[in-house]
């Protein structure tokens, strides 16, 4: 199996990795880079627990090849807090009880982060549409939606 040297920025840090052609980005992030906040739930792009930010877009890293990330900027849940200060979406998820088992949470947060960049002042309908690629089995979504709304308001007021 051919191997490739790739390098990309993960949460602001330069990363070099030797990967197989077929190796998935999520496996490289979790196993080579040791950042296990990004999870694996379905391997078919449906559940969204593997969502990461790739060059400013939300992608499901279980169906992105690691070689596709060569030269790119990747952000995961571990990159949300800056200098020890939590991001507004993280604060809001805690405040509004937007998580239970925590398994979908990293994907939800990184998607919510990107969604609020795209639409800083969303309606509930827009939040529902914006997060529809991320499944949650625990919360019934209501508090997640509330948390995204609260985060948006907080980010607007800064």
């Amino acid at each position, binding site marked *: 199996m051919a191997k490739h040297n790739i390098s990309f920025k993960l949460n602001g840090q330069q990363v070099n990795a030797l990967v*197989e052609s*077929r*190796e998935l980005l999520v*496996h490289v992030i*979790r*196993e080579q880079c*040791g*950042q*296990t*906040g*990004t*999870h*694996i*739930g*379905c*391997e*078919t792009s*449906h*559940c969204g*627990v593997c969502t990461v930010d790739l060059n400013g877009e939300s992608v499901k890293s279980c169906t992105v090849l690691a070689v596709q990330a060569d030269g790119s900027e990747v952000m*995961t*849940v*571990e990159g*949300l*807090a800056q200098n020890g200060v*939590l991001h507004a979406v*993280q604060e809001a*998820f*805690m*405040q509004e*009880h937007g*998580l*239970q*088992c*925590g*398994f*979908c*949470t*990293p994907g939800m*947060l990184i998607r919510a982060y990107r969604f609020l960049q795209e639409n800083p002042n969303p309606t509930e309908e827009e*939040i*529902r*549409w914006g*997060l*529809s*690629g*991320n*499944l*949650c*089995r*625990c*919360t*019934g*979504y*209501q*508090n*997640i*939606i509330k948390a995204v709304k609260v985060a948006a308001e907080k980010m607007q007021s800064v």
Partner: protein
Amino acid sequence: MATTAEDLAREDKLQGLGCSRKRKEDPRFIQGKGTYVDDVKLPGMLFADMVRSPYAHARIKSINKDKALALPGVHAVLTAADLKPLNLHWMPTLAGDVQAVLADEKVHLQYQEVAVVIADDRYIAADAVELVEVEYEPLPVLVDPHKALDDDAPILREDIKDKDNAGQGPRKHPNHIFSWEVGEQEATSRAFDEAEVVVKEEIYYPRVHPSPLETCGCVASFDKVKGSLMVYITSQAPHIVRTVVSMLSGLPESKVRIISPDIGGGFGNKVGIYPGYVTAIVASIVLGRPVKWVEDRMEHLSTTAWARDYYMTGELAADKNGRIKGLRVNVLADHGAFNSHAQPTKWPAGFFSICTGSYDIPVAYVKVDGVYTNKAPGGVAYRCSFRVTEAVYVIERMMDVLAQKLGIDRMELRMRNFVKPEQFPYHTALGWELDSGDYHTALTKVLKAVDYEGLIKEQAEKRSKGELMGIGVTTFTEVVGAGPSRNCDILGVGMFDSAEIRVHPTGSVIARMGTISQGQGHQTTYAQIIASELGIPSDEIQIEEGDTDTAPYGLGTYGSRSTPVGGAATAMAARKIHDKARKIAAHLLEASENDLEWDIDRFKVKGVPGAEKTMKEIAWAAYNRPPEGLEPGLEAVNYYDPPNFTYPFGAYLCVVDIDKYTGEVKVRRFYALDDCGTRINPMIIEGQIHGGLNEGFAVAMGQELPFDAEGNILGNTFMDYFIPTTMETPHWETDYTVTPSPHHPLGAKGVAESPHVGSIPCFTSAVVNAFAHKGVTHMNMPHTSFRVWQKIHELSLDKRE
């Protein structure tokens, strides 16, 4: 009771019982710092992957591992033949049957585990799986459980075909597992013979899968030098896993350490023991290296524990006024190829006999027959206590059917039959003692909140215009908190639970329980119980669960048993500490114990202002100068064996609008009133209810695991298996009443499963009600647009003007 501002401030500081304390689990989860099984990485760790059967029923002619073993990076390929000398090719199930760990001569279901490959990484393991050559001889397949007991049905379980008992009583056919009867058959028949009105309905509860977002997996690590085994595992019941692993492996239980780390949802799916766990453990023992096995979603949906699959025939006998005279339910239960539903040992159909519901029913009879088919084994409690979802579904459906037959409003029929508040504790016809309830108040509150009269008027108007609007109702009672060890055990271990609390010299606390959170927030809520009992702030109380080396033995978290059993153990252990603290306080204050009174966080000498000792001062004294004759230290353990189950209840109402051209069902409103007794953390309760309602919505509106005639499972990916997204999920409205349990130390009953159990029949009730004026009495789930459209079309309601 706090009276002054200063008292209130002291009480607030505790963040005890009844406050919406923010969760202590969250900081790690929102920063990606949780530790789930697949996050565990041990030095030298290998990966396991499964060779699975493409056939639902076939004889294995040969297995050739040569090509797989020749692949660089492959360490072993194990089959049943390799496990046989260790006597590990079969394993006992929690239901008294046995299940193949790796297929032994025959496969009984599609995707059954045939061989396990151990390799350096998951990619090599997956490659090697493709290189294992298995030759099969296909056999006739049994898919329809109604044909299981036919004379010419293919015999599935040749390993037990001559046994007249498969672990749960006598059986009448090689494909028969058990017959379970409860109640009075003759008296019930008489009630039906003499009744003025009788209704009967065939009701199918489809096979569904709990499907938490984290699949099942483990990391097994055997230390050859110490002879000890450590297993990180996705288990809702780590202590029982330890006992079973010890029994299977022959290792002393003291050398087996099971750790359930953070669990990415369970919902009943992670109670049992799966072949993947066993093979990873065996591989680690054989190879002397850690072995990780984590299944993918398709494996998860195809082979791990599913729920329901009950064909129920419900019958009610009543008088003309709607007073119920008797209930009869017959069930055909499809258990799949091995009987490995996870129920307490003596309950082959779980607590299905709670099917008399919230109603005063004089006589009842229930019979359940379980049969084998060529499908995955299961029948677990998906976000419910054992088979309670099925029971609530059948009685709530039958109440609607009876109301329709009699022309009595469904709410009124329920009001006429509710067990009355003064009848508690109420003994049901099928042997349960309902601890407490106030059903009339609950339903009345809901009807007022939603303006039921207004809805009825609106529906009449819509019907006159040919529009489809449905109003659904359920008024359910659950039985949870298993359970009293006199009638509840798993593999002989009584279903108690436990708590161990240690107060340190400076007054902070560590406490460990036999339960294990999978999102329920135990780390937050157990601390609140201790805070209120001991007067120590919640934030200074650490809660740990899931490590069998440190936590006291407990039966785990499922069947809403954590608060009813583990929560009770926590309160009782805290009270032991409280009692000792009182003795120490009396000594320090040179007063009699009887002269002391407890005030939030301290003991005071009655009538002597200023003579007081806080729990923190007492803790220090416990390690510094305890009274003579009293052991130093301040800690306690409690193993709580509940005197009874708890019986949470609720009243739900749902309004749907149906598009008569597409069959799309839009849930306009869902109002859920729950009574779980004393409420420990309202924020967490509400969150649990939202989640349970959504899982109920999923089951009612879309989930099913169908099979084709060859036993191929259809719908085993998230492409086909319905998990609601934000787009389908309705908005939830919640409400509550509080009727404490009289026998629980805190009055708490458990809550997280009520919304699942209660909402499913409510959705069906609403959908069916949309067609009730056309004479429709029941429609089977799932209520997908296509299926609903078929009903519309059958009734010619989709004609365009």
